[in-house]
């Protein structure tokens, strides 16, 4: 598998950077409607993975992974992961033709109504209406459509329709807000079976989250290196002290590895079956490696900036919060290692 970036991807990266660079510093409510409009309508990146006949670009998750990288680097507060990666993957697997075209043209933002971390919620179906509660759902605040798994099927529910309440929670990561969703006899349209759609969405989400984590880690490394080059103490730049050099070299080594792993994961889920054994292995590997690397890079960023790294004013804390959150959401590194062990047949102790 080719782990490099294609020329098209590099071109996409350039246009994304031009757009995102000017928007650094995220608003407090965790959603930048104007950037989202530019991304969806002007650049059309929400439709990257949507087939051309449904109005999308017919590209693959590899290109979407590149978008995730840049959104991670700039911590852009938009629901790309939830809508353009996870919801779109679920809808593609479910064979939807109604919602996808509207995501492609930017008129609809969809979100999977599942907890960002932890076990799936519990929603009952009675007479075609849905009732239940889902905690800590990501990317649902700005959504027009919720995709709700209930009774083994996936349903489309209007996010501000009757019987739907979304309550924002105070989340650790202020740039990716979470909401609690309460459904009380909310009307829903059945799309298809939930299990394959959710499985593929989770695998694609975990695989591409690694690219976001790569972007986060790269920002942390670049920013810290720049600081270490210019901050003078004891008459020398602090970056000339070996204690600091070696820590940054170690971060560079692990970030370099994250790049290979994230590219591999993106490639692996881009095939025909995004939830096959190889994609699941690649996604678990990616979360087991890239999550902890982003946390470490962000921690070093805070520490090596000294006091300023501990302030609200410096953006380091936003990256720290994003890194830690993503290393828990969609499964911790430890959970992914267990999953890998299962896929590799390396059974735990006590089992024959």
């Amino acid at each position, binding site marked *: 598998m*080719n*782990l*490099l970036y294609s020329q098209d991807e590099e071109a996409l990266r350039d246009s994304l950077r031009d757009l995102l660079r000017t928007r650094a510093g995220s608003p407090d409510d965790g959603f930048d409607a104007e950037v989202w409009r530019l991304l969806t309508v002007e650049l059309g990146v929400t439709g990257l993975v949507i087939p051309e006949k449904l109005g999308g670009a017919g590209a693959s998750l590899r290109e979407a992974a590149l978008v995730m990288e840049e959104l991670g680097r700039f911590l852009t507060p938009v629901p790309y992961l939830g809508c353009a990666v996870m919801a779109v993957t679920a809808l593609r697997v479910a064979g939807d033709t109604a919602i996808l075209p509207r995501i492609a043209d930017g008129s609809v933002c969809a979100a999977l109504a599942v907890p960002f971390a932890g076990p799936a919620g519990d929603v009952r179906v009675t007479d075609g209406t849905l009732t239940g509660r889902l905690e800590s759902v990501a990317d649902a605040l700005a959504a027009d459509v919720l995709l709700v798994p209930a009774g083994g099927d996936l349903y489309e529910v209007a996010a501000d329709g009757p019987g739907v309440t979304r309550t924002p929670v105070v989340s650790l990561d202020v740039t990716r807000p979470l909401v609690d969703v309460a459904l009380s006899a909310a009307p829903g349209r059945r799309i298809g079976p939930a299990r394959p759609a959710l499985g593929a969405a989770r695998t694609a989400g975990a695989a591409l989250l690694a690219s976001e984590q790569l972007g986060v880690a790269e920002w942390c490394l670049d920013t810290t*290196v720049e600081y*270490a*080059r210019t901050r003078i103490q004891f008459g*020398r*730049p602090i*970056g*000339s*002290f*070996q204690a*600091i*050099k*070696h820590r*940054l*070299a*170690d971060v*560079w*080594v692990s970030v*370099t*590895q*994250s*790049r*290979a*792993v994230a*590219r*591999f994961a993106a490639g692996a889920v881009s095939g025909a079956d995004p939830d096959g054994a190889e994609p699941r292995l690649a996604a678990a*590997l990616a979360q*087991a*490696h890239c999550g902890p690397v982003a946390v470490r890079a962000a921690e070093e960023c805070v520490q090596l900036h000294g006091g300023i790294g501990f302030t609200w004013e410096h953006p380091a804390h936003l990256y720290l919060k994003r890194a830690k959150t993503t290393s828990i959401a969609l499964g911790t590194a*430890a959970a992914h*290692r*267990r999953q*890998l*062990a299962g896929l*590799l*047949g*390396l*059974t*735990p*102790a*006590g*089992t*024959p």
Partner: protein
Amino acid sequence: MTDVRELARAFRASVPTDDPVEFLRARFDAGLAWVHYPAGLGGLGLPREQQAIVDEELAGTPSNDPRRIGIGLGMAAPTVLRHGTPEQRRRFLRPLWTGEELWCQLFSEPGAGSDLAGLATRAVRDGDGWRVTGQKVWTSMAHRARWAILLARTDPDLPKHRGLTYFVCDMTAPGVDVRPLRQLTGEAEFNEVFLTDVFLPDDLRLGAVGEGWAVARTTLMNERVSIGGGSLPRGGGLIGMLTSLWTDRPDVRTAAAHDEMMRLWVAAEAARLTGVRARQQLAAGDPGPEGSAVKLAFAELAQRITGLELELRGAEGLRHDDWTMRHGEAVDFEGRSPTYRWLRAKGTSIEGGTSEILRNIIAERVLGLPAEPRTDTTVPWRELPR
């Protein structure tokens, strides 16, 4: 554009494989040794990635052992190609590649390892050649080598980097004394080499007098570029030995070891993919610094993996296979006991530049962090503390 697959197939069909050396010589002469080298020197001037096609087509034919000829292949050859005269290239490259002549590296000295440019071995003009005197150490394969790459001081009055000259040393010349140096595994891969008034004709000098450091940089860069791990399959190499133990021996399993093994599996796969990506970059003509990341990562991994294996084996891990002194030809990670592997792995973070030096290089050359203040680069070598 040359179709190397066709060439390799035609070559295979027409050259008999019953005499391995003759076959390898013919392969070199056909330009199928290292296709990215110039025509006439074992190559065809093609992109490096095409070598994989040749190797695939010639699989199963007689081959040289890259572990045995590693120093020649990875370090001497690129240096001779880049800095050698046409005559030197013609003389050295063919037998180097066929394995008929082995090479070693006479760089490290008791007083100069990481600080290679501080070395003390002297080379003094003598008519149409040089007289070399000094002591080298940790020299892998010196006891088998026909030739050596040698760095020596030709002007002690200049600052240390400027007074060096690079030579090819004739290991059969009078005055070259090779003595095995036993290492902590019990065997001797490496040697001490004493050079006493060794005469080297001037046509064994590689590059200009006083330009030794620039030539050595070519060698060292290639040493780091020769990416650790080669092209292992997923789950292969040392991690494969650990997971086989786990699979075959339910009695060694513990809950804590399970998670540690999986951490190592993830780390090994991440390092392996980084190597794959680095080779793809190289093939695309854009060699990055990723090779250093791979070397650092594998050095640490080898130690952690082999350490965990010993712990899993418990009482078995207390027993070694054999302390008999061997004067070997190649590192044997697969054929020996787990204790050997664990001990040998301690060398991975020292050989070819220590992990600390590699971190310095990454920090300064890749990340662009400022160098530490130095006092040793402007004074004459003679005046430096040693």
